[in-house]
């Protein structure tokens, strides 16, 4: 198909996506929020409650990150780091992973991450929120953990979950795959890595 016709056809699809997004907003507006417990997580300076993560904000975005064993989760987090100041102006934002706090600190420093992080510790937060399926050991391995986001709102003494979503290639939360989709015949085997410098040097 000609360039102009292809662009017109693609834009028609984008218009369809916008219409579906409008329907999603309608659904989200009608949600009965889910009251959740005030979980105790492992913060960088000791135990921290879910309610503490709100800081001075009414709303809280929690990223369910699979930890340092997941290059894809790391790429998503790199993207959040880029827009962290913008997100933090609207809502509190924290990334939670199964890694111990000491591992989180080292990894965050290596990537230049600026957002707050907490460890699931021995809490049931991940399981209860639907971001842990299996019974794998609580270590740096990927087993059992799922990546995604939960959004919360404070309502007096209560904490309400307003929404959640899983992460995966082509989702709304990582721009990289959408850029690659603009290249016809883009290599489908491309996978994110922690660092790309090594291969260039070889």
């Amino acid at each position, binding site marked *: *198909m000609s*360039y102009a016709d*292809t662009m017109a*056809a*693609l834009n028609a*699809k*984008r218009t*369809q*996506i*916008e219409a*579906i*997004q409008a329907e*999603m*907003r309608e*659904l*989200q507006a*009608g*949600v*009965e929020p*889910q009251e959740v417990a005030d979980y105790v997580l492992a913060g960088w300076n000791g135990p921290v409650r879910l309610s503490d993560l709100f800081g001075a904000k009414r709303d809280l*975005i929690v990223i369910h990150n699979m930890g340092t064993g997941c290059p894809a989760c790391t*790429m998503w987090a*790199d*993207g*959040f*780091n*880029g*827009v962290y*100041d*913008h*997100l*933090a*102006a*609207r*809502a509190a934002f924290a990334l939670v992973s199964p890694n111990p706090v000491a591992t989180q600190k080292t990894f965050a420093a290596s990537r230049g991450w600026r957002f707050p992080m907490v460890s699931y510790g021995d809490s049931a937060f991940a399981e209860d929120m639907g971001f842990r399926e299996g019974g794998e050991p609580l270590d740096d391995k990927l087993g059992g953990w799922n990546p995604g*986001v939960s*959004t919360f709102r404070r309502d007096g003494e209560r904490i309400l*979950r*307003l*929404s*959640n*979503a899983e992460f995966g290639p*082509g*989702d*709304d*939360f*990582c*721009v*990289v795959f*959408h*850029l*690659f*989709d*603009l*290249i*016809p015949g*883009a290599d489908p085997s*491309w996978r994110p*890595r922690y660092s*790309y410098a090594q291969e260039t040097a070889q």
Partner: protein
Amino acid sequence: MSYADTMSAIGAKRRQIEALRVEMRALQSAIEPEPVADYTFQGWGGPVRLSDLFCEKNDLFVIHNMGTTCRYCTLWADGFNGVYEHLADRAAFVLATPNTPQVQQQFAKSRGWRFPMVSHQGSSFATDLGYRLEHGDEVGENSSRWVPGISAFQRDASGIRRVSNTELGPYDDFCSVWHFLDMLPEREARWEPKFKYA
């Protein structure tokens, strides 16, 4: 609707969007690319051609950024900056604006941007590729006539071809922030990006 039913209904909508994306990839793969000239830009180290921007890659993304006066374009660029190494592994990535290289260098430094930038000031690049409106206020490099977007290019022995382009705007696929905001319904206030929030 209950939380579980709402999440299930929203999940079904997400799958509808995924199906549309499959159709979009099929359309994109069948495109007849558009030959483009080897434009000359003002690079940070002197004149630079579009063909130079590929470096050793065969694919190139050029972000059409409206310049230092656009808070929205700056938000999008902050996001690209976060994943720059990932993008740069697959394709060359350059941000083009109407600002002079001097202004670009100061602004990039203030934001910690790591990607290459070029100025299209004095070239017809933006106009030819559809990123400048024919009508609108004309106030030099801060003109409201610039349009934000992305062009993707490929090169081979026959030259440079544009293989896709799109505009940028809230709720598009190229900035995650708006999709987070959709998960935090807010009736009383409309969030807008700023350069700084302190």
